[in-house]
């Protein structure tokens, strides 16, 4: 549905996008993740046909965003970060305006406005002036505007920024519902949100794609070390428990983390959760247990690590 190849965009001296390539298939819901200034908005604007790329190619629904801009614009619903709403319009009027822009007939417009108002939960606010709405409601109106032409592709730029947690959950719910019918590309710099909504995550950093995949895959591929933390009071020499732990099936590595007070701590790396086996082992040998827990890195840690790694690469030649 969305194809991006070797996309580069420069603003004067600044390289905002540097050879970005990715593809998003029909019906996919993709989170576009990255810190502020990473190039998310630039990418989305290029896809929406607002900005031209400096070089490279992007297409939406098979149409080149630069050369067949009109075709692309008819097929996307784009919600920019600054929600574009005319304050002096009523909610329904704003939606109706979008319908007119998309050349919808009167009856169709009326039907779609009703549907969309229900979808974003604003049916009771249809006659309120947009200017008097709260931020969360404005965001919903913005979503409604983007949704109105029933686009094949929805591009949402930071749909939850500036909202309180409750409003965020509401918006997230709406987006999740949309995922059933549309290809969605949404950007955010907040991880849990992307994790909660998107089956696929694209991480962009300093204008480059740093990672691409499902959150789980990203965790396994990049996070790597899920482990069981095992802490017990051991009288004897740690060599024996170490050996026993290593002997357990499925264990890749056991790391002795040394003594913490009377207790000795081990990190047992394995592909699976081995807490039950380790618990049984401790019980058999009468090791008094203080902690037995399954540790898994969060996407946040993965993300931070990517960011740090890239930092360590040093300034890129330009």
């Amino acid at each position, binding site marked *: 549905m969305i194809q991006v190849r*070797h996309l580069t965009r420069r603003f004067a001296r600044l390289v905002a996008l540097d050879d970005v390539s990715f593809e998003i298939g029909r019906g996919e819901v993709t989170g576009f993740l990255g810190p502020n200034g990473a190039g998310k908005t630039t990418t989305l604007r290029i896809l929406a046909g607002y900005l031209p790329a400096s*070089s*490279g*190619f992007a297409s939406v629904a098979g149409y080149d965003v630069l050369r067949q801009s009109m075709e692309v614009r008819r097929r996307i619903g784009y919600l920019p970060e600054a929600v574009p709403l005319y304050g002096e319009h009523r909610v329904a009027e704003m939606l109706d305006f979008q319908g007119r822009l998309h050349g919808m007939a009167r009856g169709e417009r009326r039907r779609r406005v009703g549907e969309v108002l229900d979808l974003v939960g604003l049916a009771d606010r249809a006659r309120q002036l947009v200017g008097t709405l709260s931020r969360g409601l404005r965001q919903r109106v913005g979503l409604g505007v983007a949704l109105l032409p029933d686009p094949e592709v929805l591009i949402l730029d930071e749909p939850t920024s500036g909202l309180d947690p409750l409003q965020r959950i509401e918006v997230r719910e709406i987006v999740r519902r949309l995922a059933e019918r549309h290809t969605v590309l949404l950007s955010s710099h907040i991880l849990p949100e992307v994790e909660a909504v998107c089956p696929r995550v694209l991480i962009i950093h300093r204008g480059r794609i740093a990672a691409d995949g499902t959150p789980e895959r990203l965790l396994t591929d990049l996070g790597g070390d899920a482990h069981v933390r095992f802490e017990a009071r051991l009288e004897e020499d740690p060599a024996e428990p170490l050996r026993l732990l290593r002997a357990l099936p499925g264990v890749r590595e056991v790391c002795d983390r040394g003594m913490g007070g009377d207790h000795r701590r081990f990190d047992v790396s394995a592909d699976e959760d081995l807490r039950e086996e380790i618990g049984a082992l401790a019980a058999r040998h009468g090791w008094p247990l203080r902690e037995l827990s399954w540790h898994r890195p969060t996407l946040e840690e993965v993300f931070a690590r990517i960011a740090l790694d890239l930092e360590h690469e040093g300034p890129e030649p330009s």
Partner: protein
Amino acid sequence: MALSTDEHAPARPTGNATRLGIAATVALNLALAAGVAGGLCWLAARPGLRARIDLTATGENTLDENARAVIDAVEGDEPIVVDTFLRPLPAPLDRITARAQQRFVGLLRLAREQRPELFRVTHHALAGAAGTSGTEARMRELGLSEVDVVVVSRGDRKEIVRFLGDVAEIDIGRPANMPGGYVPPRLLAFRGEETIVKAVLKVTQGERPYAYFSWGHGERDLYGEEPRDLGLLEAALREDGFAVKRWESDEQGAVPDDCAVLAVVAPEEALSPRETDFVREYVDRGGSLIAVPGHRLITGAGSVGELLEGYGVRVGEGVVSRPYVGAGGSPVYGIPECAEVVVRAEGMAATHPITAPLRRAERRVRLVFSRPLERGRKPTGGVLLDLLTASEFTWADLPDADGVHRWMWDEEAEREGPFSLAMTARFPPPLPGPAPPAGTMEERPESRVLGLGAPDLFANVLFETNRDFLLNAFNWAASREYRVSISPRDPDLRRLELGSGRGLFFLTMCAVVILPLSCLLFGLGVAWKRRR
């Protein structure tokens, strides 16, 4: 996820060069657009591609059909140079004259649009720091001593048009502090086209018309500077575009073919029968004659009286006199000054081209020792017209037995005014004549005769007073006033009665209060309706 590695779009190098390139393209686009617009405007202003509709009820923006025909008919490449020396007049005339001037300038522009290659129009600045030196130089060049005029010239021929009087007649109204209250000034008549066309015709007519003055019968010297000589007239005629010559039949024989007007001015002796025949033949072929009897009353064959009588103008007996207005306003009789008669506007023919401009401009004609003229048998198919008429407070003073005038009214013997002092006769020439000059509206030539009663009317001593009358007379006689039929247009005079108060109040309320307030209320209404 598999990424295709082929280069889909060729990478466009971006940098300052590209930016410059884009800027250059945009600039080129803009220049192109401006060029196209300029070209379109230029094309649209071409006479052939231009259409215009005049929406005014008075058609004040359109040249009359006849005027267009005259301008179209102008031949030759030499440009017609029009210099305007118009200035804003002081209040309260400022607005109205400015508008009239605008209209006039607009007509000049229309003329120019019709023949762009022919007309060179320059509007000279008369006020302000800039441009006055150039204006002065041009005024010197044209020999101008007055402003508020428009000079139309071509080569060495020029015609001066006075803005007030010739082009626009303005009623100055009444100032507010006068009894009866304020009356705004208004435009009585606007003759822009007429004056332009006449001026154009005057400066474009083929060669100089010849004015011949008969010579050899005691006429006054044509070039002399004595009070009763004709030197000033001769100079003025030359200035006006005439070539002035003497006609002496002994040497030249018949009246020359190029003669446009023949003047027989105050001969003190009779013309020979041969000469009289020459004159008659000339007039009958469509010529023009101006004839004035001399001081000495001659009658019979060869006299001016006999000559004029053939065209229906009889020279009467006596000298038209009036009581001289002495100090204190009391009438004085018995002095030679009684023979000086002044004809004011009311004594002039209103429609005749000689007197109509004078009448409009409220000029006077001063005549001394004038014979009364009477209507005789008019020539076949002709028209007689009294040009100047002395008022009823005049009498035809007859000399006493000794031949001396007493300047006293003898009720029994002497006739009472009004008297005609100048008469014209026009008639279709009985004999075939030369063709009229091109470009005029003349359907066919006609013979013109102007008979005058006062021998000194043309003399240096009275010339400045009567200058316009005399030049008009020669121009008319030489067929140079070209009957250009331009229907007069009345300026728009629809006015709101300011005195009545109610209408004005209503209008003021509407314009200043109701309309803006209704907008405000409407706006408030909309705001109230959409407050949530």
